[in-house]
């Protein structure tokens, strides 16, 4: 299998980047998309060129470290998967594949396809936790949590923090990410004591980081590898209003 990659190359945060073209032969349909890039990198090394920088770690769709724009879509042509789960069988022999980094002002490019997503960590820092020290826990079954509540918390706790929601949003909004964490903790009894504070502080940090507002286009939930629903954003704003009124 043979494809033409058009890939964003950028030395570092302070330089301008540009798309470069690479014709690659010797690929197979079984290869993952990242393995195809690995293959290209080996060819570049042998040609004495610098390798393309892109991120990955677990390569099984759970760590959230990989993520690029492929032919104009976050994580490639399919709904709800990560870049590492994309395989070359999704492309045809002779295809041209355009690969770009996440596009969002709050995710500056560090090099080539690697962006800095530390803004997500800083949002988490503002209350994405339950304040309880190690050693202070009551017996686990003393806190009864109905299955539906636990299941709905799990649905949003599943967020892998890849940033596809931000990258695909025309406003570069981080509302889906932020709402996932807030709704996970605020809907559980353990998270109630800090619920009002959490929703206010995390959304405040989200704005400080320069993420845009949500205008409910639903683009994010299509790309989210965990299929987290956009209704979470509405729920977050309802919680925010409640916190402002009663918090």
């Amino acid at each position, binding site marked *: 299998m043979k494809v033409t990659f058009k890939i964003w190359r950028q*030395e*570092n945060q302070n330089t301008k980047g540009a798309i470069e073209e690479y014709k690659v032969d010797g690929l*197979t349909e079984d*290869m993952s998309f990242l*393995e195809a890039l*690995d293959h290209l*990198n*080996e060819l*570049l*090394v042998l040609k004495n*060129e610098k*390798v393309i*920088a892109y*991120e*990955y*770690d*677990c*390569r*099984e*769709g*759970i*760590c*959230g*470290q990989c993520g690029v724009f492929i032919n104009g879509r976050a994580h490639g042509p399919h709904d709800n*998967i990560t870049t590492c*789960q994309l*395989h070359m069988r999704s492309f045809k022999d002779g295809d041209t594949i355009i690969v770009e980094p996440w596009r969002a002002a709050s995710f500056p490019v*560090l*090099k080539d396809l*690697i962006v*800095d*997503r*530390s803004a997500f*960590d800083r949002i*988490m*820092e503002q209350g*994405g*936790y*339950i304040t*309880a*020290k*190690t*050693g*202070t*826990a*009551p017996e*686990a079954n003393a806190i*009864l949590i*109905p*299955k539906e509540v*636990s299941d709905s*918390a*799990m649905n949003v*706790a*599943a967020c892998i*923090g890849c940033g596809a929601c931000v990258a695909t949003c025309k406003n570069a909004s981080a509302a889906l990410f932020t709402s996932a964490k807030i709704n996970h*903790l605020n809907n*559980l009894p*353990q*998270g109630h004591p800090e619920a009002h504070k959490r929703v206010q502080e995390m959304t405040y940090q989200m704005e400080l980081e320069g993420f845009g507002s949500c205008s409910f286009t639903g683009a994010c939930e299509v790309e989210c590898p965990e299929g987290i629903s956009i209704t979470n954003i509405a729920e977050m704003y309802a919680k925010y209003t409640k916190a402002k009124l009663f918090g």
Partner: protein
Amino acid sequence: MKLDSKTPEGRLEDKWRNYQIKAQLINPANKKKLNVIVVGSGLSGAGASATLAELGYDVQCFCYQDSARRAHSVAAQGGINAAKNYQHDGDSVWRMFYDTLKGGDFRSREANTYRLAELSAPLIDHFVQQGVPFAREYGGVLVNRSFGGVQVQRTFYARGQTGQQLLLAAYSQLYKMIRAKKVKMFPRSEMLDLIVINGKAKGIIVRDLVTGELKRYAADAIVLATGGYSRVFRLSTLAIGCNGSAIWKAHKRGAFFAAPSFTQIHPTALPQTSEAQSKLTLMSESLRNDGRLWVPKQKGDTRKANDILEKERDYYLERRYPSFGNLAPRDIASRAAKERIDAGHGVGRLKNAVYLDFRHAIDKLGIQTIKDRYENLFSMYKKITGIDAYKEPMQISPAAHFSMGGLWVDYELMTTIPGLYAIGECNFSDHGANRLGANSLLQASIDGYFILPNTINNYLAGALEEDIPTTDHIEFEKAEKEVRGTIDRVLNINGTKTVDHFHRELGKVMWQECAMSRNKKGLEKAILQIKKIRDEFWSDVKVTGSSNELNTELEKALRLADFIELGILMCTDALEREESCGAHFREEFQTEDGEAVRVDENYSYVSAWEYDEGDFKLHKEELEFEFVKPSVRSYK
């Protein structure tokens, strides 16, 4: 050097309490003056960082990923064990201890293993408090499931994403303490050397992976929480960045390496399909609760799985191990699969897989129940292979997974270098020669949250008397120069082969000779082959780019250089141990029907290797079984 495990006196049930009663305390005003470095931000590293910070220590935490939330604990799927006996099925701390000790084929310390079981129940309390959405019954209580090697239900889980949920809980606590300004986090930072001053661990050299700058950090104690090293096989269930470099540098600075060859080969991963493959994705062991493993009875059968009649199928685990069946422990399940594949019954394109079939479970329980239990695993399988496992069986294959071996640690989790601790998968402690499923998240968490924060005081109390460490010391100077020398050397070889080429070569040798089944001749050959790969690497590797920039190729090269040396030690260890125990199966030591033969009279010890100028010197920690009599491990 005599290895002192520092196991406390008393009955097994009292040892940990006796230890805590006698351990030194440090008053809160003094804790503030002490500084601890934690390398790694996975379940053990993040848990330790957060807890040490809560206690009042200043913590600096390092990870190579872009965020602490990526650490590979995130990928553990099936669950975490705890002796809660919520299912009223006869579980107890003792039974969990015994299962773990037996699962490890009596090659771990009784006291450590007992402590693991003892602290498991409060750990579940802890994680529930942190907001981990464990699976629950409609009435609100926690649910359990079964795992391999055990006849009770003691595994807690959050769908097939338990590791992710526990890691995110630890990560959130870490960020809570970052906000409190008690932890300073250094992502995209890789430890490249350990600083030992007057025999004590006092700092690390770190490469900033964005700028390439080498930086020095000093502390009163260093904690390594850097995970497993099964990427030495290249193809493994581990994340691509997982590496053995931090523990290898520590080893070369004097920390003994225990049981390096004890590697768990996981029975249920996705098979390799091509040479270019970079990763073998794990499919959780929990699938064996409802899935049945089989191969066609007829060799080289090319029919589709669903066309093969029931009577033409060999459910080989149920046949060989009727009492544990599909839930036989991992080492046994992997070897049984290999035996069938080698005998010509393998399935799939490369004939290197076996079937894991859910048809019976779906017929019996209904598709919805199976979806509730494993939906994310089935959807992951479909994303990767394009196959719907509700309709046809999964194809799975054994893959390198967990490192039972690691830095030798005593009961306090301290290595042979005073002030250097190793926690989680990077140490050797509780799993012996084979780890039971769902004990990995458990050990990582317990080491980080419960044990280390209790034991580190004993050492740090003495550190109060010493000078505050600084990075001006000559040892920092020397180590930084050495690291720079290694980096320059790698970049200047300018040979003809890529890093990945050498990693593939190393992986082939390791998988062939030092994985599921080993023999003297093969291991001797492997050592020579790896030495040859080492020589070729250092004369013919090609790495482009420079050292003062983000250079992923350079990162890979440095990690591989350490893996190559580690591979030699692993083979040396496997060669030395002339018995079969747990995951270590020496072909010369087996019964007529292919079961392992342990040789307690000669090998009831933990091997602990000292680095000696490119060679390795063996020390032995004899294992004393005071409370349990080692038995022949049978799952028939």
